[in-house]
């Protein structure tokens, strides 16, 4: 019995790779965390590793709505950005310690998701992507206007959390490896919660909505309410990613709220494999590594990213991880 996505359901065949993948699917949390634990030692510098953690988490949260429930949102930048700004503003303007500040960021993102989701679920089908995009752009303009709090065009500067002030531990985020494991601790908790949620009855509701909305309704699912709840939970995860990003960068760029940040979640989730547990991290890793390499060569890296995305839509819509699973399960 497996509660994972059907694509992740594999019989242990003679092939070693298939066996490994199947093992990973059964212990998905341990597999993700085990890999991420040794991850910074595989990369040239830790900042890239931290980026991949944060954007992997962001894409993971997005994937709940897109991959598992099958609803395409183009407004998740709002939750990433609100998480960033709320955490940043709490630290910069109100001197809140980092832990409650992260909590504030998550709550702000959740509230944003509650409002945007509440409006967007009133529409149906294809409108959803358009409405979420428009409303997140509205958040962008609002934050842009609130210059005293948000720093406007220049972004919010001075989100300086160096000393973690944990009694008994002398930890400082100036050390890049410490910063990595600091972020990792939150990502680990989030990944575990996410997996737990997928395995819960509500996880089954998500799958059912993706598979067949009208049948789910006839079975007694309150479709609008369930979608809204999934949207808010997804927003909470993205908010945490945003909060961590504020602390990581020590600034909150206004681009966090931009249309392109929403698009980033779509691209990463699809590139990795939508509706798969590992996909978002695979997507974030692929995307950010490519960006890192291509920008060394040319400033026009968006050309390659756009073309790669189009290529995947046309030929590998299951994404990297999804395609791998598909091949192995045949």
């Amino acid at each position: 019995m497996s509660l994972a996505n059907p694509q992740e359901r594999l019989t242990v065949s003679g092939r070693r790779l298939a066996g490994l993948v199947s093992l990973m699917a059964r212990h998905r949390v341990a597999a993700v965390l085990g890999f991420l634990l040794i991850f910074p030692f595989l990369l040239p510098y830790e900042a890239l590793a931290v980026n991949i953690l944060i954007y992997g988490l962001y894409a993971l949260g997005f994937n709940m709505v897109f991959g598992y429930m099958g609803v395409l949102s183009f407004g998740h930048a709002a939750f990433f950005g609100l998480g960033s700004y709320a955490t940043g503003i709490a630290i910069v303007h109100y001197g809140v310690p980092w832990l409650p500040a992260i909590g504030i960021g998550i709550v702000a993102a959740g509230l944003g998701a509650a409002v945007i989701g509440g409006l967007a679920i009133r529409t149906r089908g294809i409108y959803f992507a358009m409405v979420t995009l428009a409303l997140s752009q509205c958040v962008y303009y609002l934050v842009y206007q609130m210059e005293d709090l948000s720093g406007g065009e220049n972004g919010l500067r001075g989100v300086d959390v160096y000393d973690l002030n944990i009694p008994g531990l002398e930890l400082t985020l100036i050390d890049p490896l410490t910063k990595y494991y600091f972020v990792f601790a939150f990502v680990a908790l989030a990944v575990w919660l996410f997996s737990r949620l997928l395995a819960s009855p509500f996880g089954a509701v998500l799958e059912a909505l993706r598979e067949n909305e009208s049948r789910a309704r006839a079975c007694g699912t309150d479709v609008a309410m369930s979608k809204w709840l999934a949207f808010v939970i997804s927003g909470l995860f993205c908010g945490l990613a945003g909060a961590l990003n504020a602390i990581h960068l020590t600034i909150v760029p206004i681009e966090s709220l931009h249309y392109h940040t929403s698009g980033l979640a779509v691209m990463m989730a699809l590139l990795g494999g939508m509706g798969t547990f590992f996909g978002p991290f695979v997507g974030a890793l692929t995307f950010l590594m490519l960006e890192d390499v291509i920008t060394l060569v040319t400033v026009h890296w968006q050309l390659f990213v756009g073309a790669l995305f189009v290529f995947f839509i046309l030929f590998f819509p299951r994404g990297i991880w999804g395609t791998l699973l598909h091949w192995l399960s045949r």
Partner: protein
Amino acid sequence: MIGGYPIELLALQLFTGLALGSVFVLLAVGLSLIFGLLTVVNFAHGAFYMLGAYAGVFFIGYLGNFWLTLAVVPLAVGAVGLVVERWLVRPLYGRGIDYPLMLTFGLAYVLVEVVRILFGAEGMPFDAPDSLMGAVDIGVGYFPAYRLFVIAATAVLVLALWLFLEKTSYGLVIRAGARDGEIVRVLGIDISRVWLVVFALGTGVAGLAGVLSAPMRSVFPDMGTTVLVEAFVVTVVGGMGSLAGAVVAGLLVGVVVSMTSLFAPAMAEVSMFALMALVLLVRPQGLFGKKGLMG
């Protein structure tokens, strides 16, 4: 005097809103047309608008004539649309409504970056022709001639489009195809050719909107992003797939934005979203939308 402003100023601001709204109308009409027949939400619509503006810059330098440019740009942008439909969008039909949407989203990145490579990241100047420079007295004050021209051009184009869809046999095929592709196929018409034409038509109109608004708004590679969001807002307000909805909502949004920028400049950008939120609360299917469309 209303709210401390003289009537004349308000009237001029209303006309400014109509000129702005005209561009919205053109964008939303193209978007709606493509969606209505192909059920494709074209996320590259803003990029085609941007292509139109740059094609304008290119052709006016090459041809030296504004009017000729105005005729050539929609054809050139529509030709790009043809290629995109035939080779990129068509393989995705039948694969779910989200795929063409995401594909066009990725395509927009490519188009913007290609333009950046060809023309540079800096903004480009684009002047209205001499004959449309200056201002005209419209009874309540002087109003820029070019903006009046944009309003008139939009009116003519929408009328022509309406006549084409309602009165010609090809328009009938398009309208029939929007309701039921099977019927058109049974009649022995190659529906995929109709899709091709409609996609080209929609993107061509977006290109025209781009070149028309070039003298009013600046020309730069990312100009399509904001416009895409604006076009979506108009479409949600008006109701997807409705020509009348696109026209009314486009003008309405233009006027709301322009009036807000007079009374509360800081809220100008946010005002259209407030309008959209209101419509979603009161009439989620949009002003002219049909209930249950694409449920």
